[in-house]
């Protein structure tokens, strides 16, 4: 056994211990398991929400994106911050409605507010198709991180089994409380590791941040701003617009809104979270430090920039600590995804088929579902396969298709009904699948359009069609639907 491996193994054992312990003194019913009994403080809600936003994608992906593309990487910070700003007005009414109607999943929200169980099931299916590949991505992340930071001592397959096993054990046992407990530790470790790497590596290789940027500007002029073509200003703006709308539509992010004890937590967090988003900047510093130090990574390999540079620079024990941070960014968000997807299955698919199921039995169903989903994700994380890659690319665009229905539900006057929202989602999801699977770009779709149109993020097409169809179908079916009386806007 080598040093990093021992550090990672001990930390993993500690995580499981923390996760298991979270159950103490709690009678585990469905509400406790899925949304922590709606009793979480501002701080816990903060780490849960921040926790699921700072996944392996942000740890490895943000540094990789900065390594590969430079300036455009800043879109990640901007869209996150704008989503936090939006959360000030978006989350309190959603939380209020969920508490009033004892909702447990994102699909419950659509089902209740539009008065249609079938719509809930549709949303659940779309969510699961998006969420499970995302979980697979976290598992794949564990495999890569542990293999690299153990200097090849543990093969990805073994690492994935161990990581997934550890996570599933405490998820099945403690549910959301386990995730909250471990999220606190994860955020502390990731914060320290990111800030340290982001400041030390530029200092070590260039003598400081300022001289690092000056050196990069000399070697690659303009790389640290937006380019004229490709990932340019049009791409940047359209991608920010779509991504910030979609951020809270991830079913696990949505469900963790329900864990809060008070609605004021969301408004408080909207003040602090933007600052917290700056942590991602430090992982981008690492990616930028790697540009001239580990040149030549391309394609999917750019995501390894942070780990490669760390291994090249540090003693094994420190590599181990970085490995722990990486594994945590996969396990903690992964556990929330696992809880969200198994609750979705139990509440919006199983319960629809067997409406008489008791609460305690449903709780059992969702835990068995957690085990099953985890096994499925492990299978695909180890097996791989091109179909999964396509699903991963589509995942974010799929959940974004739930945006129009959510925003429409928050309007004072009813502008959409269940038929409109359902057909809108189907058209949106269909459009995303078509454009991804047939490799369409804005250029192939609109060859005659002006050049700037070609740089628009292709996701706006699906979202635009979705919204238009939703409004049109609602207008056509207005007579068919008894308007549910909803007092969403009223303060308690």
């Amino acid at each position, binding site marked *: 056994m080598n040093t990093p491996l021992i550090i990672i193994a001990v930390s993993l054992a500690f995580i499981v211990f923390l996760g298991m312990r979270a159950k103490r003194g709690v009678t585990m019913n469905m509400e406790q398991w899925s949304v922590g009994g709606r009793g979480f403080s501002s701080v816990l809600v903060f780490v849960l929400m921040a926790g699921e936003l700072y996944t392996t994608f942000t740890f490895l992906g943000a540094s990789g994106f900065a390594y590969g593309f430079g300036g455009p990487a800043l879109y990640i*910070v901007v869209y996150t911050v704008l989503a936090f*700003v939006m959360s000030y007005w978006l989350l309190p009414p959603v939380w209020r409605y969920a508490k009033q109607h004892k909702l447990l999943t994102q699909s419950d929200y659509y089902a209740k507010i539009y008065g249609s169980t079938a719509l809930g099931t549709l949303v659940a299916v779309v969510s699961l198709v998006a969420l499970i590949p995302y979980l697979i991505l976290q598992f794949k992340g564990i495999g890569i991180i542990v293999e690299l930071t153990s200097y090849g001592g543990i093969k990805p397959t073994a690492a994935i089994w161990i990581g997934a096993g550890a996570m599933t054990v405490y998820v099945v046992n403690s549910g959301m409380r386990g995730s909250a407990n471990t999220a606190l530790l994860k955020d502390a470790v990731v914060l320290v590791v990111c800030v340290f790497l982001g400041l030390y590596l530029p200092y070590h290789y260039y003598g400081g941040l300022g001289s690092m940027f000056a050196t990069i500007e000399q070697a690659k002029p303009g790389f640290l701003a*937006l380019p004229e073509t490709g990932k340019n200003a049009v791409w940047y703006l359209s991608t920010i617009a779509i991504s910030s709308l979609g951020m809270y539509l991830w079913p696990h992010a949505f469900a963790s809104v329900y864990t809060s004890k008070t609605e004021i937590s969301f408004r408080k967090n909207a003040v602090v979270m933007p600052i917290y988003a700056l942590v991602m900047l430090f992982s981008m510093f690492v990616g930028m430090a790697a540009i001239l130090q580990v040149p030549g990574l391309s394609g999917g390999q750019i995501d390894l920039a942070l780990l490669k540079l760390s291994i090249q620079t540090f003693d094994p024990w420190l590599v181990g600590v970085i490995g722990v941070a990486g594994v945590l960014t996969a396990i903690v968000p992964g556990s929330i995804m696992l809880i969200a997807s198994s609750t979705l299955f139990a509440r919006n698919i199983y319960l629809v088929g067997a409406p008489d199921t008791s609460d305690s039995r449903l709780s059992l169903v969702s835990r068995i579902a957690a085990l099953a989903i985890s096994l499925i994700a492990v299978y695909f994380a180890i097996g791989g396969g091109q179909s999964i890659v396509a699903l991963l690319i589509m995942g974010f665009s799929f959940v974004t298709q739930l945006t129009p229905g959510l925003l429409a539900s928050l309007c004072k006057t009813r502008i959409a009904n269940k038929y409109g929202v359902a057909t809108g989602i189907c058209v949106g999801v269909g459009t995303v699948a078509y454009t991804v699977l047939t490799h369409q770009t804005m250029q192939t779709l609109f060859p005659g359009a002006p050049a700037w149109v070609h740089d628009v993020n292709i996701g706006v097409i699906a979202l635009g069609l979705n919204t238009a169809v939703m409004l049109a179908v609602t207008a056509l079916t207005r007579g068919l639907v008894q308007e549910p009386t909803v007092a969403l806007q009223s303060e308690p």
Partner: protein
Amino acid sequence: MPRSTWLVLIPVLLALGGVLAANRVTPFIFGLPFFMAWVVGTVLITSLVMWLIYSLDPANKP
């Protein structure tokens, strides 16, 4: 909705308008490329504005 809600336009305009006004590497601000410094400044101002909105919003009074 309190009138202070309109303050939210400040961060949105800074974040999105930045691509037109600030899309260049030089001059460096505190060592950061100009575009990155603009984003960092926007984030700090965003937090400040959200704090203002929070404190002026009667919904947050006990």
